[in-house]
């Protein structure tokens, strides 16, 4: 059995680890709340945009933007959103597993795949896997700016415009609640017009300045960008939630370990005292 001093050092080191994990848990909890607020704040923009695009595409059924035209898939693009840091449980692993599955199923059909990664974990993983990464962004921080994403999204949108890509998917974690995050694979392009707002009961149309088509082009680009942005913000909320849960488990485990070690330490101490006593008594009897 380890001696008293060794156990004491061990207890101390576990306690220090526990302090760190507990601090990280608290930091993650407060960051999660902020990320959730940001998630809620970006929602009205996309909602409003969806309703305007829905209206426009219904009012001008003869005009089909390239983003709305369904083509045969020869090459597909993926935008994969991950975290920058680890220590967040199985969040990234689950996402990458789902991503790989989607990638493989396309590749089996003889379809080439291009990747855009957001977050350093994704770029590391898919580089090792050997995916073709055409653009990437890392270290966006806790409050990402839409401006940081414009370039990335443009790479893919241009690819789609030129006919280099025929589908575009967005892969990110959906925030269900603090305990549950779901890997999500969403189709960005072509935009499903039927998923946009259906009812066109109103019999009026907008006045357009300058042209309806021009306005629609602008809106569609911004719409895709805002969806990607929402994905990023949602993924951050997921990251913080997952980290909070993981760090809580780590703190609890450390607590368990400490109490076990404490028990061993007490036993060792007791044994030492008993032994010493019996030695003294034995010595006295021998005299």
């Amino acid at each position, binding site marked *: 059995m380890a001696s008293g001093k060794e156990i004491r050092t061990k207890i101390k080191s576990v306690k220090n680890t526990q*302090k760190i994990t507990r601090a990280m848990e608290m*930091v993650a909890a407060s960051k999660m709340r902020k990320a959730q607020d940001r998630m809620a704040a970006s929602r009205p923009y996309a909602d409003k945009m969806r309703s305007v695009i829905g209206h426009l595409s219904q009012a001008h059924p003869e005009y089909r933007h390239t983003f709305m035209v369904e083509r045969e898939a020869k090459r597909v693009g993926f935008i994969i959103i991950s975290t920058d840091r680890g220590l967040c449980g199985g969040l990234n692993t689950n996402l990458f597993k789902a991503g790989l599955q989607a990638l493989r199923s396309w590749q089996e059909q003889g379809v080439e795949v291009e990747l855009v990664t957001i977050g350093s974990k994704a770029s590391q993983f898919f580089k090792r896997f050997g995916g073709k990464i*055409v*653009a*990437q962004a890392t270290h966006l921080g806790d409050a990402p700016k839409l401006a940081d994403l414009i370039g990335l999204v*443009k*790479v893919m949108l241009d690819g789609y415009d030129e006919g280099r890509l025929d589908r575009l998917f967005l892969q990110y974690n959906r925030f269900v609640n603090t305990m549950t995050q779901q890997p999500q694979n969403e189709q960005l392009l072509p935009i499903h017009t039927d998923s946009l707002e259906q009812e066109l009961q109103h019999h009026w149309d907008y006045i357009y*300045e300058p042209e309806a088509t021009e306005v629609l082009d602008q809106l569609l680009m*911004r719409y895709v960008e805002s969806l990607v942005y*929402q994905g990023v913000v949602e993924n951050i909320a997921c990251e913080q939630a997952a980290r909070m849960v993981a760090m809580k488990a780590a703190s609890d485990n450390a607590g368990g370990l400490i109490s076990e070690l404490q028990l061993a330490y007490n036993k060792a101490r007791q044994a030492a005292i008993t032994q010493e006593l019996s030695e003294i008594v034995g010595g006295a009897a021998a005299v």
Partner: protein
Amino acid sequence: MAMTMHVDIVSAEAAIFSGTVEMFFAPAVQGEIGVMPRHSPLITQLKPGSVRVVKQGGEEDTFYVSGGMLEIQPHVVTVLADTALRAKDVDEAAAIEAKQRAEQAMKDAQSDIDYARAQSELAEAIAQLQTIQQLRKKAR
């Protein structure tokens, strides 16, 4: 009492303004426009500039937008504001930069960076821990 309409100014990152106003001004691409309640439905692009609202009671508020879209319905006005300056070549430059980052990362050996990052993360966690401890001491 003057007639009013509802105005929402939203960007992809945040809701900037929401409230009831009497009059509304915005820099549309084809010239500045003023909007009063019961305007006919209109959609237009915005130039960078300031959006001005006259709230109920005559108080004015001004917001800067770096472009975006404006949707007008008789009693609801929505500004879909851009948060970043948008121009064709600026976007192009951002796209090129994103591509270059990917190429750069492909070349770099990642292991040293990972180690350095882990170290900095640890240092950060410790610093946060110390701050929390100090706060606790103060609270006592």
